[in-house]
């Protein structure tokens, strides 16, 4: 067993920390609950600078402009970017699309997308099922050497900035007849319906009306979508980016509690209950960190980590809410203040992370994750949901 980085990995982490401390001024860090266009553009700029050092796609092969390292280095990058509160521009391409193309894509697709992703030049969004509709996925009907897409899909990050969308489509009548495709967002017949979220982000419903795409959009074989989703190594999210950002706010909050109180009185941490809650959440942060790194490590040894990824993502969602509730409680009415108000503590990030934390299904519903753990890790039978 070994719970530490190799010395090369430590060196990478230090260099990265050095780079970020120079490149990321405090005012360009994310203010929780109020993601802005300025911050988004800044994150793309940082991505390009990272790419110039071959650090952005640190886990991709060097021939595609990556760093030629593995999931551990990718995890270090995610965690540090999170800790510096950089928005997740490019994340979908780097952590979801690139691994899928590496595993299942053809030579043309690899050449077409991987280097652009590695260089931070293109933005992907990810199309999810719509809950409301019985079918859930857009249909893709054969049409000569391509498909005609109809239906709609949901995306929850940077859809309005995305160049391409990566999504599952229904390519047949059977339950399992689904396939992954990449669609250019500029293709005619695509219409975005934007839903502003309460953290400044936007969700979107993407409508496909007779959208004609060529065969070349298909990743891997037709009808292999579910198989790809389940068996693709490195496909599961580690959650390290989000972990980094939560740990950062927790660290800031802890420092705040050890300084004087908002009303100028004794430090909040003088109160035994506050210290006790800080200790509970410190344990929660360590738990989140270990569960996330467990996924990255499993990926690094080529293991499939479906249940472990669900555990990490579920725990992180719930721990983020516990931390936000705890911090709100400790700060009392001060916690309800937003960035810009007189007397606001911590740039309003506590009120902001509270609102962020309400996005409990950001990385899948808690029911879905618990089902996966029960069924994949414990071998229990399918249940009704």
């Amino acid at each position: 067993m070994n719970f530490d980085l190799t010395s090369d990995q430590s060196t990478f982490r230090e260099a990265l920390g050095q780079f970020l401390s120079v490149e990321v001024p405090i005012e360009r860090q994310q203010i929780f609950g109020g993601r802005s266009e300025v911050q988004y553009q800044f994150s793309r700029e940082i991505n390009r600078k990272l790419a110039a050092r071959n650090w952005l796609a640190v886990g991709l092969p060097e021939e595609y402009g990556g760093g030629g390292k593995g999931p551990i280095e990718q995890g270090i990058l995610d965690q540090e970017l999170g800790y510096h509160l950089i928005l997740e521009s490019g994340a979908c391409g780097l952590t979801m699309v690139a691994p899928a193309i590496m595993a299942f894509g053809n030579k043309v697709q690899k050449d077409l997308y991987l280097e652009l992703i590695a260089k931070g030049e293109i933005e992907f969004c990810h199309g999810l099922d719509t809950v409301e509709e019985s079918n859930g996925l857009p249909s893709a009907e054969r049409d000569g050497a391509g498909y005609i897409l109809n239906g709609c899909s949901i995306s929850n990050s940077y859809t309005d900035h995305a160049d391409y969308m990566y999504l599952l489509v229904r390519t047949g009548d059977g339950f399992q007849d689904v396939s992954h495709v990449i669609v250019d967002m500029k293709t005619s017949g695509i219409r975005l319906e934007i839903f502003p979220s309460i953290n400044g982000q936007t969700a979107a419903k993407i409508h496909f009306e007779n959208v004609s795409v060529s065969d070349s959009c298909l990743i891997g074989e037709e009808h292999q979508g579910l198989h790809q989703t389940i068996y693709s190594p490195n496909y599961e999210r580690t959650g390290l980016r989000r972990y980094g950002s939560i740990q950062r706010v927790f660290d800031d909050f802890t420092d705040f509690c050890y300084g004087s109180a908002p009303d100028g009185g004794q430090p909040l941490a003088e109160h035994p209950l506050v210290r006790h809650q800080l200790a509970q959440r410190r344990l929660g942060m360590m738990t989140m960190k270990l569960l996330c790194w467990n996924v990255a490590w499993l990926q690094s040894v080529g293991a499939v980590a479906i249940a472990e990824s669900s555990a990490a993502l579920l725990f992180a969602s719930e721990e983020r809410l516990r931390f936000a509730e705890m911090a709100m409680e400790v700060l009392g009415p001060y916690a309800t203040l937003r960035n810009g108000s007189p007397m606001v503590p911590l740039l309003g990030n506590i009120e902001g992370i509270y609102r962020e934390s309400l996005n409990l299904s950001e990385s899948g519903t808690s029911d879905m994750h618990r089902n996966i753990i029960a069924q994949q890790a414990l071998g229990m039978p399918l249940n009704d949901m």
Partner: protein
Amino acid sequence: MDFRLTSEQKILRNSAREFLDRECPASLVREAENSGTGHIPGLWEKMAELGWLGICLPQHYGGLDRPFTDQAILFEELGRALAPGPLLTSSVLAAYVILYGGNDRQKKDLLPGMIKGEIVLTVARGDGLETFSQSSGLVLSGESSFVRHARLADHIICATRPAIGAWPDTTLVLADTGAEGVIMTGMESIANYPQCMVEFHDVSLSDDAILGEIAEGRVALELAVQRATVIQCAETLGRSHKVLEMVVAYAKDQMEIGRSQSVQHRCADLKIALDTNRLLTYQAAWKLDQSLPARDEISMAKAQSGTLSRLSTMTGHSILGEIAFTSGHDMQLYSNRAKLAEANLGDTEYHLDQLIAD
């Protein structure tokens, strides 16, 4: 023992719900949130006409003189509808301070106008305010934060601290918001809730501005805070009840979700917490109506109210999913306001502390 509403109370509840369904849709709540004032004058006037601003105040001031429990019933409905405006601030907290602390003339000057909706009152508390005597008369100075609806208010009831060389206990005074030396700074808050930091720069007060007697304001303030705390619980109860209704309606509509045992069990837990809060809140209200000691019962209700708020927020967002995270969905209106209510008039920790302070 009787845990039912009387038939009069049922009429009150039903008519309030009908009125608010019609006159206070979510679109109006959003309008208030975006208005900067958190207030809809048209709605305010109609509520005043219904007598809601003086529901438990004496008839000779224009009130309806109904039992305190009825005010709790009314605020359940107001909470359910997220009705905007300085309801809790002006018609409950401030009104009871005047009622319990003011002299006859002050009551006559303020309560009828407040009840008609023509006068808006608010309350400034905290340790930052003090009054002292000068040759010219009484002077108010210091600052108070989180003064709710301050910009809308005509008068601010200031609870000023006992200070060395001044008074031995709390003195309540009335300051006009337009008086010289009163400076307000908005505090941007969750749900755009309208509250201010208010500075008083040596504001001269007339002798009439003292509510009751110098250094004798504590009891009136405490009585008013007790009642307002119960009403805040009722408001949270209504809000949380509506969240459960939204979730259950969604689950029934989406049968795959409605049949999920996990979803059902979370709804059941919220239902238990709601029933609990209803019993705790009305137990406290009933005790106040009976003039029985109710401090512990009030603290229990408010402590559990925070737990209920959190549970309804978590249940709502986790079951309704990502769509509830968008501004267009009503759920987030509820979860944002939950945090204001939770922190108002003492949170769960504070009231648990009260329960073991002896």
